[in-house]
């Protein structure tokens, strides 16, 4: 007997045995397979079953029905095929395997089609499947040598800089200080430092002329300053 597994990413929500000739899928409660999600149309699609011969038919749904990543209006599905409806998948399990692929698909993905939105609740369900949402790192520099206004600077902006230029997080003083000595970027994955243009800076005693990913404890030497990078976990 053919069946489908309704999944939310990896988690199986329910198993449905296809015993009726027509199984309806949609958001409305009168459907055989109800998917309560904003991305799913009221009457989204149906499955026509005759033994192990299963055909998926999209009912002109707003966001479409996808078989193995390809948009489909009416397609036969086989054992192991994955039907994507909104953000849920239906995995097909039957005794009929697909024959060797006869034609290559040249279907444009949905990426450039209509934009759609899902509700925050659904998002939470999907995202919380793996609870690894890390907060952005927060760090800065301790001044080891050189004259600055403060002994410690926190870098909380996405892009900041060290230099004489107005607005720099660490302001350099003196006639010959460079306008921009280093750019510091803060990203979700961590901080990095870049010397602007043809300039150079020293990290842990080594000369750097391109982007460098900062690690806790790195010593940065720039324009008469010796700084130690720190990051709070």
């Amino acid at each position, binding site marked *: 007997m053919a069946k489908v597994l309704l999944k939310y990413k990896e988690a199986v929500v329910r198993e449905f045995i296809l015993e009726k000739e027509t199984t309806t899928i949609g958001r409305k409660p009168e459907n055989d397979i109800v998917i309560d999600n904003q991305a799913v149309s009221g009457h989204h699609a149906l499955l026509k079953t005759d033994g192990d011969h299963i055909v998926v038919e999209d009912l002109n749904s707003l966001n479409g029905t996808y078989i193995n990543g390809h948009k489909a209006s009416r397609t036969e599905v086989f054992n192991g095929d994955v039907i994507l409806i909104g953000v849920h998948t239906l995995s097909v399990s039957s005794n009929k395997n697909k024959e060797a692929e006869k034609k290559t698909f040249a279907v444009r993905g949905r990426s*450039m089609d209509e*934009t759609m*939105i899902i509700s925050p609740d659904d998002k939470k369900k*999907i995202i919380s499947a793996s609870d690894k949402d890390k907060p952005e790192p927060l760090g800065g520099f301790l001044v080891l040598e050189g004259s600055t206004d403060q002994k410690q600077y926190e870098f909380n902006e996405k*892009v900041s800089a060290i230099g004489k230029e107005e607005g720099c997080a660490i302001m350099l003083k003196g006639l010959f200080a460079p306008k921009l000595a280093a750019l510091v970027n803060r990203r979700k994955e961590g901080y990095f430092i870049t010397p602007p243009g043809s300039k150079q800076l020293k990290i842990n005693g080594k000369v750097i002329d391109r982007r460098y990913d900062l690690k806790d404890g790195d010593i940065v030497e720039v324009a008469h300053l010796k700084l130690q990078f720190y990051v709070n976990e």
Partner: protein
Amino acid sequence: MQITATGKTDLGLVRSNNEDNFYLDEKTGLLLVADGMGGHASGETASKLAVTVMRDYFHGPQIQFGKYNYSYSEATNRLNSAINFANLAVLEAARESPQLRGMGTTIVAVHLNGNKLSIAHIGDSRAYLIRAGSIEQLTHDHTLVNEQIKSEMITAKEAAQSAMKNILTKALGISEDTEAELDELTVFNDDILLLCSDGLNNMIRDEAMLDIILSSPHHDAACASLINAANELGGWDNITVVIGHIKKKKWHFALFKLMEAFRR
């Protein structure tokens, strides 16, 4: 600091209507890009309405609306209030008319105050900063794939092929609880800001945008070249580009303004 800005929007080569909208005001230092969505013509309505409401907010008394966020400055809270107003306006318009039901829009907004820039966004329209020859994305898309990358469920490579690339986790005008993501930045003389809809950044890489902007004689030309580049690669969606240039206020500007005032 002051800002000079220019912007351009284009239908692209595939879509039959332009659902993008933008607004720029050098005087108040406000730049906006909105990318609408929804059936019929409602996407256009949503983005237009959001942009208009935000524009009017900065020409009005700028009252605080919604929760005050103490992690950010008053100026950033004002920008957030403007977005809250826009959210409610789109939501109510959608409720009143059955044709507009379900419409929504992305928004990316920057507002300059002295040398502080307030940044707010909802959805997948982006803001970039170009400083000292490098480009950095200032906003994180509110898309499902981006959240999946963040929580390490999929890799960036898988995301690029994902069938769910255009599913937003947030949009303006969909719910009362929608909140913008806020950020602040200290701007420098000669910083360049780029705001765009996904019709641009889905077609060309960040480095290519940077090259075009830095090699163009002026920002009007850069806007046109960016749109051309996106269209040459297919132009699958509406393309909107806004470029702002930050300049230090000089004393003779003040003098110039004073003379203008006298002349009137």
